[in-house]
């Protein structure tokens, strides 16, 4: 590289490093405040660093709140939603891509059209349906409405259309049943899409706040994001406790992200730009 570009390059690196540092500050603040004691929090002279770090905040979270229960609720609902969405998206995407039948384009357009509708429009009637089904404060109220994803069906259809028809014809000559054909010939071809869709469905389900806020109000039924806010409203003064809860909730998500990072970013570009 020529030497003239060196100084701007160094400046660029410094600016980016500064930006990255700013991005990390909230996490730092979260971890630091979770280690403060109650006494320090209410002192008149607020300081950045805890004088004598303690884990009393964490103790309080783990003894005072059904923390593992919340975690379990989030995990169960998110896994069910992800598995359900992957299954329905792949299956419906396959049928829409490879079969011709009456009313197909109308159905597909109906599915596409719902993607544009803000959640605010559907949340009220969906809540009324959930009430009629007697599922308020039941975890299946979280799972059921999210089992079919318009975006997922669309994504899978796009990819399956690209698979050559001869492939499934060959399977048919071999006498394979339709479902086996789908499972053994189509699904392996679209695993990159499915993994991307899976990651994003899981993340959206895990992080969802608005819908659980509407249908869950018992403390034991809450999912993690909802519980954290609920916890915050009860312990607002002792924010060391709240920050401990926040750390316990954020760390697993971030750890999972760091492990699967490559798939994550690749998935984002597949699902975003195709």
């Amino acid at each position, binding site marked *: 590289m020529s030497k003239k570009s060196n100084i701007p390059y160094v400046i*660029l690196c410094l*600016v*980016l490093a500064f930006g*990255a540092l700013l*991005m*990390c*500050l*909230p*996490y730092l*603040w*979260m971890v630091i*405040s979770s280690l403060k004691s109650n006494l320090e929090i209410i002192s008149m002279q*607020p*300081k*950045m660093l805890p004088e004598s770090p303690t884990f009393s905040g964490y103790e309080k979270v783990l003894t005072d709140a059904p923390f593992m229960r919340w975690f379990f609720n989030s995990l169960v609902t998110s896994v069910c939603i992800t598995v359900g969405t992957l299954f*329905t998206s792949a299956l*419906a995407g396959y*049928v829409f891509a490879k*079969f011709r*039948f009456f009313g197909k384009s109308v*159905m597909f357009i109906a599915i596409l059209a*719902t993607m*544009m*509708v*803000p*959640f*605010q*429009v*559907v949340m*009220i*009637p969906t*809540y*009324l349906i959930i*009430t009629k089904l007697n599922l308020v404060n039941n975890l299946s109220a979280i799972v059921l409405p999210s*089992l*079919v994803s318009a975006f997922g*069906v669309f994504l899978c259809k796009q990819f399956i259309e690209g698979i050559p028809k001869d492939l499934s014809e060959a399977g048919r*000559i071999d006498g394979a*049943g*339709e*479902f086996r054909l789908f499972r053994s010939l189509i699904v392996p071809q679209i695993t990159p899409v499915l993994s991307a869709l899976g990651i994003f469905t899981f993340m959206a389900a*895990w992080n969802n*706040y*608005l819908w659980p806020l509407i249908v869950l109000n018992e403390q034991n039924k809450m999912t993690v*994001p909802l519980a*954290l*806010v609920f916890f*915050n409203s009860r312990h607002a003064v002792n924010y060391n406790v*709240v*920050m401990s809860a*926040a750390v316990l909730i*954020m760390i697993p*998500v971030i750890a999972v*992200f*760091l492990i699967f*990072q490559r798939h994550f*970013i690749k998935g984002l*570009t597949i699902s*975003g*730009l195709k």
Partner: protein
Amino acid sequence: MSRTRKGALTRAETRFAVFSLTPVMLLFGLFSLIPIVWGIVLMFYEYNPLNLHSPFIGMDNFRRLLHDEVFLKSFRNTFRFVAIAIPANIVLTLSIAIGINQIRSRLWKNTFRTLFFLPVVAPIAGSAVVWTTMFNKDGMINIMLNMFGLQSVNWLGDPVTAMLSIILMTLWADIGYNIVIFMTGLDAIPDVFYEAARLDGASGLKAFRHITLPLLSRTSLFVLIMTTISYLQMFPQFKIMTNGEPRNETRVMALDIFDNAFTYMNMGYASAMAFVLLLIVLIITVLQIRLGRSGWEY
């Protein structure tokens, strides 16, 4: 191979299509189509699940909207939020993406991308709680101001700074998403264009204006539309950080709809509000696609 017409389905195929599509379409109908239709019907009724009667009132909900001071304020707030947050988001993410793409070391490039992307995966409700304590009177931001000898600011309680604080938090929480999309878009631009430009003596800003911007217009349009749709419906940070306060300065439409529907249980009225939001989303998206298309002739 007992096909009579080209493309006609065999019995086994038909059975498979019907069996697999029916449950999917039933779920989709119950939780997508029926709610949309029901939502549109509801807005013509004075529907409150606590009342015995829910009379049909025609356009009265919409007439009421026009005189509802709080709704009109939430309407303006939504646009204020979008008008500041979206340009800020696009400018920031595009410059950061270009910056990171210039980094030569692969390791550092990935590290930067990861650090900027990290908040996107964190639950936004959790981030909102963390930021609320940061904006507190003895939170991190005021502690830092004090270190530089500046006065503390009541960030979330002051009508002037409340919206700004939420915009800051929102930008932190999701610029990573657009950065990654822009970086992919930038990677897709072939290097030959830049080499040709350099031979012609054009580089830096000129190359950016005449190569990067036009070749990135598809990506930019996608980013703009997705960001607009999501920001118009933004809810968690408004509910958690300020709940619309102070003096309704941070009450956006999504929050007003939620409160009307689930706090006051005026579900017919809230449906009318939600329909207005739907119209806004549709109009803005169509406008953006129209305007964006005209810039694609290359």
